[in-house]
């Protein structure tokens, strides 16, 4: 089990990185719809890590370190939930 895979990618939806990967892998929806499967909401929360992860899933190769960096970076932004 990858430790970064266990990390919550977005407080909205409370899904881990690995759970988000599974959801993105199983859908044919475009990002703007697929993100709701992870966040469970219509907000644009956690945009950078989520969008990057979606792209990685499409490409077929996950860079966990980069996703971890983007998750941590988001927390630095004030509020952190409206990016």
């Amino acid at each position, binding site marked *: 089990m990858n430790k970064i895979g266990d990390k919550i990618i977005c407080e909205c939806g409370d899904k881990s990185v690995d759970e988000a990967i599974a959801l993105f892998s199983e859908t044919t929806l475009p990002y*703007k*719809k697929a993100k709701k499967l992870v966040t469970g909401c*219509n907000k*644009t929360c956690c*945009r*950078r890590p989520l969008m990057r992860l979606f792209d990685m899933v499409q490409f077929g190769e996950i860079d966990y370190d*980069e996703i971890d960096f983007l998750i941590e*970076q988001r927390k630095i932004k*004030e509020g952190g939930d409206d*990016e």
Partner: protein
Amino acid sequence: MSDNGMNDFIRWVKSKGLETKIPTDIETLKKLSTLDLTKQKLNNLPESIGALKHLGVLKISGNRFKRLPESICELKNLRNLQCENNLLESLPENFGNLKSLIVLNLNGNHLKELPQSFYELQGLTRLTIAANLLQSVDEKLKNLKKLLYLSLDTNELQELPDVFGDMRALYYLDLSYNKLVALPDSISEIDELETLLLEGNRITNLPSLESHDMLLRLNLNNNELLSLDFDLSKLEDLQILTLDDNALETLPDDICNLKNLKYLSASGNMLKKIPECIGKLENLVELDVEDNLLDTLPDSLQKIKALKTLYIDNNSDLKRPKGLELDFCDVD
């Protein structure tokens, strides 16, 4: 050229175990034109990097740099600097000495401001500083007249000075995810603009965008728009229009004159109807009006033979329209 600086650099390369990435032969290093240190988990660059006088391309994205050495400003031949996803809190004061820079990527750092010399980088054609913490940009940004591509998205900008008047060649402008409530008037003077992304701001009133007759893509998602108060039909080349998550109650009939429109998205608004003339959009491939207040769809929708994807869920009990050969519809 300083061999001392070069020897210092070689020692640094060896100390970091980077011999497989970087030559350690002094004569080869003197001629080195490209250095790629992407994703090496480095915490700093040595001052001796300034000895690599022939460097034209420097890729240092995906490390842990909080600052760049002052000596980086001595790389007079540097044309392309890729420094995405680091932890930069500031740039060297003399950053503007990098007069040869054409492409600069500073996405995903922690920059709150830019040094004054930054605005002397007048050769820049592609500048991306997305996902930083910029609270303002100086009006001297207007000096960067050669810009073709500018991304300032995901910062903390509450306003922008009138800087676009001389950026005649700019074709891509991304100001998404800031805190803008209005746009500078000079935006209308960008003759060549093809992509304008304004998603995730607090814009209530748009300036007229009618002059942008070359615009291909316009994204106004997640703002506070109540209406579109300019003649949309002037955007005659527009192919992608996204208006999701605003407070629009209607779409103007002008929209039906956008003959080249392929993607129209207005989900998450308060639309009660779609213009009956929508059938005139003969090139429309995708229509997204999910999450609105629609109880009917216009009959003319059936005329759009190109339409393949339709999102209409979360309205007032809309059913999948008959007579269309859709590849996907989110309701039965």
